[in-house]
């Protein structure tokens, strides 16, 4: 059941060099400074990039550690957007509407968790996709609440700066949250579930509790960025919130970058967002086909994702990075054993 441990990952242990931290620092500074420049297209580009990173990282909190592929992850985003839209048009207050959106998303995760986690593997994935479609139909039919096929529209405000920074904060939070789980006892418990759920259960790990907890945790930030997204773009419709695109994108990005690591989903999100940008801005035809070819290539040659690919790892190391902040069954167990013996 478990895969052979790919070699390159163990090559990424150790402290990252100063060079790496400089790179991270530079990226952070660029991110923070971007909206300061007047009328900047990159503000918009980075905004969507942050959202993509949040979605992918939080998706991987469940998929990477437990092995459950949640095709309905996009629903947390969509319901966050709708909840925000509904709340803001009734209360006019961001202070109330944004937390409301987060709350709704987490509650949805909770409702999903208990029934759906009784399923395994592909059945779980199909069921989560079913939930997504269900929400889509609800959004279409509850016209009075959601505007139906017309969509939900709110008054535009001067929201570019606050939404940008909120998205940036969410992005940082997602990465740090992922890292925290990776190094914590929750992560260890989830890993045991991934390796063999029944053995874990008989060893005293309450699988259902941990799976539900991580699902609800993974829903909070998508709900948050869903609200922020709605605040900025002022329009959401069932297709944008719950469409197949929304479902598959975080999955593909995480798989491409390297599921099960902290940095993998981030890399996947960045790579695909840039790829889409280059393809759609500079090439007139057949962009979807090219995008498809990239997907096929990744599926064939890099199923572990970029982070586990030898060539990519070389570039990664050359930039100064060492630790991919990933989990790895051996290394986490090693940590655990070390602290026990200390």
């Amino acid at each position, binding site marked *: 059941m478990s895969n052979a441990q790919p070699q390159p990952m163990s090559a990424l242990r150790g402290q990252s060099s100063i060079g790496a931290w400089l790179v991270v620092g530079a990226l952070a500074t660029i991110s923070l400074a971007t909206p300061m420049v007047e009328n900047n297209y990159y503000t918009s580009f980075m905004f969507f990039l942050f959202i993509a990173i949040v979605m992918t990282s939080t998706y991987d909190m469940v998929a990477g550690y437990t092995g459950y592929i949640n095709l309905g992850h996009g629903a947390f985003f969509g319901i966050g957007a709708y909840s925000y839209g509904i709340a803001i048009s009734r209360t006019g207050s961001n202070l109330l509407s944004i937390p409301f959106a987060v709350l709704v998303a987490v509650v949805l995760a909770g409702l999903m968790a208990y029934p759906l986690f009784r399923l395994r*593997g592909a*059945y779980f994935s199909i069921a989560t996709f*079913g939930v997504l479609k269900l929400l889509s139909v609800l959004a279409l039919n509850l016209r009075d609440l959601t505007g139906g096929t017309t969509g939900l529209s709110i008054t535009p405000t001067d929201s570019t700066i606050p939404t940008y920074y909120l998205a940036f904060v969410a992005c940082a939070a997602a990465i740090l949250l992922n890292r925290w789980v990776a190094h914590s006892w929750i992560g260890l418990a989830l890993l045991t579930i991934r390796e063999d759920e029944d053995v874990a259960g008989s060893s005293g790990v309450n699988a259902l509790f941990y799976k539900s907890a991580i699902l609800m945790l993974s829903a909070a930030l998508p709900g948050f960025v869903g609200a922020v997204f709605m605040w900025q773009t002022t329009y959401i419709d069932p297709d944008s919130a719950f469409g197949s695109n929304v479902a598959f994108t975080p999955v593909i990005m995480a*798989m491409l970058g390297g599921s099960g690591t902290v940095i993998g989903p981030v890399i996947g999100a960045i790579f695909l967002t840039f790829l889409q940008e280059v393809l759609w801005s500079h090439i007139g*035809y057949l962009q979807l086909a090219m*995008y498809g070819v990239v997907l096929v290539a990744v599926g*064939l040659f890099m*199923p572990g994702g970029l982070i586990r690919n030898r060539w990519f790892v070389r570039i990664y190391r050359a930039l100064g990075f060492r630790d991919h902040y990933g989990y790895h069954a051996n290394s986490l167990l090693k940590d655990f054993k070390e602290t026990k013996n200390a």
Partner: protein
Amino acid sequence: MSLSLQILIGAILQGALYTLGAFGLSLVFGVLRVLNLSHGDFLMLGGLLGFLALKSFGIHPFVSVGLMLVFGFIAGALYYIGLISRIMHRGYHEMLIASVMITLGVSLVIEDTTGFLWGGGATGIPFQMSNVAIGGVVFPMLRVTLLGVTILLTIALHFFLSRTLIGRAILASAINPVGAVVVGINTEMVAMFTFGIGTALAAGTGVFYASLYSIEPFMGLSLTIKYLAVIVIGGLGSLPGAMIGGFLIAAAEAYTSYFGGAEWSPMVAFIILILALLFRPQGILGKGLS
């Protein structure tokens, strides 16, 4: 009363279409554990080529169905050899991920290239058959033919799988891949065959689909997802199950539409899906997955 009966007939006939469309998907998933997300695109291609065959060469749609079965089989076999075979040896998780990426990628390539070459407009095959009315209820003959074809195909596939050598090899590989190799079955050939049959069925159904409805380049993915619901409810890997799943969903949609209003019928399929997964995850006739 007669309307109610008409709806029942309509549901049965609609179910036949769902079943036929879903067969290929069920077979491929049941035997190979591969989720072919490009399934719907082969259906679209079958319909499109059937349309062109009629328009340019005057080939009768029923002949086209046969042609598409052959074409679909060859295309599927090549698809398998070129792409799918390379990921078959991987572990369960990796294979799931890889199969999703590859089939999704192929789906996008097919859709976009077809849209680019064809022009994106919707089109259908202008083929009608007369209708038979029995006691106030109309039986559209094209759909009845489809039902007949579906039933024949179910029986044929059943005999194929249980009586012929290749068929039993396919079943053996599905139940126990390692054992099959030990016994001397060329699992690669078997896999290629199965995949080819899956896409052949999709392409063949496409001709019917284009005659009954219309097709356009980007319709593939949503169809695949619909059929996925059908086979999950009926039981992954079970062909009679696909039939039951198809009829169940068609009936649920038709009656919801009639009694509750048509806007709720898409939801019904997914509610049944989730309920089925909760209470009987292996599907009505399925044998479960490891």
